[in-house]
């Protein structure tokens, strides 16, 4: 079936004109409609997609093809898209239409891809289960009673259910990698600064990074190729050329030193998850990689550090949602202060409010030194731990998440339990490093397990090639959820 092909395969079929973009896009739109129960999309842009597909077909007919001409993809609803809704999973932006495209969206346009719609997400990317979305929970295609992970849960569910072959996500503390792990996908969070943040609605500016969610590493490389690169509109984007990721995929793992931090293999991790991670590492070892014991001694400080810095930045980033210029505006306001209080009280959900409160507190006079400043110091120590570990290895490996996908509602009443989902991922954001989750097996319940690969700064290539080599030897990434 058409939808079972990878992004790269579809791209090539389009180029060879074995299929048309119109046919493929129609197929995707039909599948999205058939899988509405997953709630993976907030907006489906049928007319926009079909006209983009028609334009792509004309281009292909002329024998012209850009990187992704005619390939349908979806964008996480955190990326601003001109002309269609950008909600960020929030009531606050329920009716918001951006007058401009995010740089990432623009680059996919330039590469010729077809945007079929905007995927569901945790509100303002704050969540690890996609249950904080104003537009309702997303369901995991592997088990509709379980969460797809978050915050890029809609993108993960859409790719896992083969509604599209690739989708964009964003990752502030694990929001690409954890849903990729929960949905049996390949998800890459690039190095901080590799992908422009312009037009990506900010959660925590020093941690946010956009990246691809796909079914295999080759597709992730292709999407990254399209997304990455310096953007003068983002002062934190890095002015360095993007290596040809797709060519580098062929790099062998022979001689590659894989570092296993003992802190990532402790008893807090589900036994089956550890077992699958170890099995996949054995595959890489067979391919010639060597396993090295390393340590990231301050990992345990990651969660508290992250949950000071991210909410602090968020509390300020979300101040612009005040009901004055755009977004939800309360109808119950007599005074200016009512307009602020009511618009924000009505427009934001519980988790967003919780984080704004935490962040506001952490930045308040008298607490700043004890929380924000201290967290910044810990952040440097955590980054230093990685640097030290990378003296002994080339790539750090471990589980992406301590468990497989959990049932809907299981952790909604316990924020800290929810936050612990990101225990292995958020230190990577704190250090600004690239991280990738790749499927490494299934637990006895039939749920996918993710292996996380962490690379040196700007070394996405090693992560993609390692994942690609693993995928040449295994078929976990080729399995599909039942009924999809």
């Amino acid at each position, binding site marked *: 079936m058409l939808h079972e092909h990878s992004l790269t395969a579809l791209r090539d079929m389009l180029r060879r004109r074995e299929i048309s973009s119109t046919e493929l896009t129609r197929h995707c739109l039909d599948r999205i409609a058939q899988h509405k129960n997953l709630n993976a999309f907030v907006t489906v842009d049928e007319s926009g997609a079909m006209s983009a597909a028609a334009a792509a077909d004309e281009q292909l007919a002329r024998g012209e093809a850009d990187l992704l001409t005619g390939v349908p993809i979806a964008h996480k609803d955190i990326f601003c898209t001109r002309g269609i809704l*950008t909600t*960020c999973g929030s009531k606050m932006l329920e009716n918001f239409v951006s007058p401009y495209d995010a740089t990432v969206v623009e680059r996919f346009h330039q590469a010729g891809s077809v945007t079929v719609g905007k995927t569901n997400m945790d509100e303002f990317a704050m969540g690890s289960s996609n249950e904080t979305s104003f537009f309702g929970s997303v369901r995991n295609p592997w088990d509709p009673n379980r969460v797809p992970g978050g915050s890029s849960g809609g993108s993960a569910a859409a790719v896992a259910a083969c509604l599209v072959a690739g989708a964009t996500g964003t990752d502030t503390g694990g929001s690409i990698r954890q849903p990729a792990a929960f949905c049996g996908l390949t998800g890459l969070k690039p190095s901080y600064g590799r992908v422009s943040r312009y037009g990506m609605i900010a959660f925590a500016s020093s941690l946010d990074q956009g990246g691809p969610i796909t079914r295999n590493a080759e597709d992730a490389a292709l999407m990254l190729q399209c997304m990455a690169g310096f953007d003068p509109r983002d*002062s934190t984007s890095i002015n360095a050329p993007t290596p040809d990721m797709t060519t580098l995929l062929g790099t062998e793992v022979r001689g590659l030193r894989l570092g296993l931090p003992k802190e990532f293999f402790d008893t807090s991790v589900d036994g089956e998850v550890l077992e699958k991670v170890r099995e996949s590492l054995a595959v890489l070892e067979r391919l010639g990689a060597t396993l090295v014991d390393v340590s990231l001694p301050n990992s345990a400080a990651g969660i508290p550090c992250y949950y000071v810095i991210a909410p602090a930045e968020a509390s300020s980033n979300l101040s612009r949602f005040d009901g*004055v*210029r*755009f977004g939800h505006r309360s109808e119950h306001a007599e005074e200016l202060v009512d307009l602020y209080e009511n618009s924000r009280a009505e427009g934001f959900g519980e988790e967003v409010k919780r984080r704004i409160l935490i962040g506001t507190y952490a*930045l308040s006079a008298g607490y700043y030194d004890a929380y924000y400043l201290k967290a910044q110091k810990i952040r440097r120590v955590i980054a230093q731990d990685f640097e030290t570990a990378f003296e002994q290895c080339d790539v750090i490996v471990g589980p992406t998440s301590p468990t497989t996908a959990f049932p809907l509602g299981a952790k909604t009443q316990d924020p800290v339990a929810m936050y612990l989902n990101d225990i292995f991922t958020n230190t990577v954001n704190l250090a600004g490093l690239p991280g990738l989750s790749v499927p490494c097996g299934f637990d006895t319940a039939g749920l996918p397990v993710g292996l996380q690969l962490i690379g040196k700064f700007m070394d996405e290539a090693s992560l993609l090639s390692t994942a690609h080599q693993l995928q040449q030897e295994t078929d976990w990434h080729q399995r599909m959820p039942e009924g999809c």
Partner: protein
Amino acid sequence: MEFECVIGLEVHAQLMTQSKIFSGSSTAYGASANTQACAVDIGLPGVLPVMNRQAALMAATFGLAVGATVNPVSVFARKNYFYPDLPKGYQISQYEIPVVSGGSLEITTEAGTKTIRITRAHLEEDAGKSLHEDFHGMTGIDLNRAGTPLLEIVSEPDLRSPAEAVAYLKKLHTLVRTLKICDGNMQEGSFRCDANVSIRPRGEAALGTRTELKNINSFRFVERALHHEIDRQISVVEAGGAIVQETRLYDPDADLTRPMRGKEEAHDYRYFPDPDLPPLVIDEADIALIRSQLPELPDARQARFVSDYQLSEDDAAQLTGQSEIADYFESAVEHAQGESRLTANWINGELMSWLNKSDIGILDSPVTPAMLGQLICRIQDKTVSGKIAKQVFAALWEGDSDGDVDAVIQSKGLTQITDTDAIAQAVNDVIAGFPDQAEQVRAGEEKVIGFLVGQVMKATSGKANPQAVNELLKKQLLD
């Protein structure tokens, strides 16, 4: 009890960049509302700031000019508060590490010369404007000004009188205009001042509770607002009351200060480094380049005017109070073949009074430095008297003879009569016509000679050389 006041000033100087500090929008003044506000200025979701390097270099220029440290690395911070004309809910400013630290300015008042220390100068973005009229009980927002680059220059509390405050402010005003980093237009808000004021018993070291005066947008208002506030504080304290730390607005119409209606309750701005902007780096090469391009500063120019042009301190200070006036002077002197003092008198006197009457700046003066210089030459070579020169000046101002000084003198027949015979004829006529006065002079009342000189001048329509007239009269009556 005798009180002294302690004043510190915070000046917001709008930097003369073409575009805003963090976006590409124009900074031009006076466009219709919200036409110069792009996605970044409006604070749309997803937008990011990009530093305008020009603004940073202007700040560094200021730092060098006041002998401050230009910090090689400074940090942008977010100042968080809610207000409708603040689109992002925070203002990007600098907090812990500003671009400029330290420095000083020297001021001169009747009390003498004094050094005023500058605490810091930091870069920040301006907010928009709330428009309270024309919206029928609602408020309109104009974001054209949002994101305009400002340099906030903070002085130490070294000022001890409203006169000193004004002197400091004027000095700063001249400086930023000389450096061409700010146009200094106070009506348009390009140069704004807030004042922190407190009083204490003279001789006491501890500072009193201060109030902050806002909305003082002219030199005259600064002086008046400060006087009012100091008097108010003294009367509160003398009545046994205590000063409340608060922000007060100066109302120029009522000529008083009143507490500002709560913009917000107690502020906690929750400053933290802006994660969207890398630290601002100004390296040694930047500094060297700026230093090489630094214009002559007002103090140095004043000193040079005194030494090179033999001007009085007062004349030199007046001329260097605006760099355009000083430029005019130097150009005019050149055309006047080096006659500096007379040129200075003409600029500070006649030219200034015409400029003031017409309410225009010196750059718009119809009498150019070349014309004035030429006129000074004609005074020097006695073609015209000083008095006649004023008529020539007026004609030049009106655009007569395309500004050709000699043509104006010719066409109006204003050439001074230096021909002794012609003057002698007029002198004899006057002596004959005013015999009583002539007799008084002969009797030794020399003062009366002035009257007779005046009559001769009148008879010659002012064209006679007054010195020659004087000599001739004396010769005729006293020899």
